[in-house]
């Protein structure tokens, strides 16, 4: 096998992950380099959430290769080590309903070693330092809750962002905020993996798109400008990365099922 490149943030090769006895990831290949923004799309039940949770070190990889930020996900100790270096935004809010917005963000920020100041800065970035700061989370709307979860994520300043359906349930303003955040995170050097059904919107901010189904990556029908692809087993072809430009269709990745 080729050695993992130094700035390769994520490297999965024929990785299998189980949920109970069910193979949620059934041999998945994925390579993400530092600073990339990757969109992972696919039908419900395809394994997008499991992929993100595996990258976060929450789920063991039982066979194949899986390395995130230099940590081997097949080893328990490495999985624990990778957790505090990533930031995961899941479906659940991850907030304490009885605490205020500020209390929540402060707790989660300080629990991963960030300072109060960084937490306050995150609150300001998400516009949560005004009227909403002292509101108990139980009383927030879904969109406001999502913003609070994101503030907690921002305060972590992680190297790898894992966002699971970040736009779901948000209004137009909320979605714009998320897009801006993803772009600024990427330009600050973080790597972002977004799982989303919203191919158009997320596709506009992503450098490339990966489609998964049935726990593996599937071939995409090539787009109009896709280069000619030679299929060979375990081939991992990547198209040139393009800068984000409004209105330009991002290149779609072509990966072969191995």
């Amino acid at each position, binding site marked *: 096998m080729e050695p993992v490149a130094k700035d390769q943030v994520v490297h999965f090769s024929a990785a299998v992950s189980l*949920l109970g006895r069910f193979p949620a990831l059934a041999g998945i290949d994925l390579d993400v380099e530092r600073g990339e923004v990757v969109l992972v799309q696919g039908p419900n039940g395809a394994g997008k959430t499991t992929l993100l*949770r595996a990258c*976060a*070190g*929450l*789920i*063991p990889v039982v066979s194949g290769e899986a390395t995130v930020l230099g940590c081997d996900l097949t080893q328990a100790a490495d999985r624990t080590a990778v*957790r*505090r270096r*990533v930031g*995961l935004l*899941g*479906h*659940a*809010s*991850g*907030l*304490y*309903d*009885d*605490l205020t917005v500020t*209390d929540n963000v402060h*707790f*989660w920020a*300080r*629990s*991963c*070693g960030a300072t109060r100041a960084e937490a306050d800065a995150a609150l300001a970035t998400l516009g949560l330092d005004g009227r909403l700061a002292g509101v*108990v989370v139980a009383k927030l709307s879904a969109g406001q809750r999502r913003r609070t979860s994101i503030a907690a994520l921002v305060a972590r300043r992680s190297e790898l962002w894992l966002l699971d359906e970040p736009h779901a349930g948000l209004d137009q303003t909320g979605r714009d905020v998320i897009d801006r955040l993803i772009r600024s995170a990427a330009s600050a050097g973080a790597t972002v993996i977004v799982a989303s059904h919203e191919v158009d919107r997320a596709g506009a901010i992503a450098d490339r798109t990966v489609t998964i189904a049935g726990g593996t990556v599937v071939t995409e029908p090539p787009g109009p400008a896709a280069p000619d692809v030679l299929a060979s087993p375990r081939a991992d072809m990547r198209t040139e990365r393009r800068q984000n430009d409004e209105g330009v269709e991002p290149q779609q990745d072509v990966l072969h099922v191995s």
Partner: protein
Amino acid sequence: MFRDAALVAGKDLRIEWRSRVTTNQVAPFAVLVLILFAFALDPDRGVLQRATAGLFWIAILFSALLAVQRAFALEAADGNRDGLRLSGLRPAGIFLGKAGAVALELAALEVLLGIGVVVLYNTTWSGWLLLITTSMVATIGLAAAGTLYGVLAAGLRVRETLLPLLLLPVVAPVLLGATQAFEAALDQSASNGWSWVVLLSSFAVIYVAFGILAFGSLLEES
């Protein structure tokens, strides 16, 4: 580790302060248990007075079940368990923080029930040093064992019924030791009581040590 513990304990106590579950639900429950004992045992023949120590600790034991359930119900909501695992918090610190918060809540309940027993059962407390020391070590042991089994039962759908089955046999020695020590204090034969305090302390030490070592492993769901 202690910094993490303080952070977690502070968070749990702040939630308690805001939601007031212990004050509004667990405390009345504890007093209710004392009252029900009066229904079950004849209040006129001095049974309640003689059995005060045992009844007190049984009420505390049941309240401990509720307090532990509550401590982990907080984390069960909405992906918080994932959040704890993803945070940089040392699992030993999370254990100490949660156990510490439960211990403080139990201590408050003990004060309340101490007063309740004086009022409802006509008991007079004596042997204060023994009483307070016993309470402290017994509470630490209860909180540690409770937090340990609490995390084990936490992720499961059947946790409400499983936790009592797991925890109560384990803390039976605490019930025994604390009751004997309290009776020694009340009878003013304190010398016997201190040996029980030694037993309770060993229990507490063992379970705190176990918790520090095993909590992280038990927090993993997968």
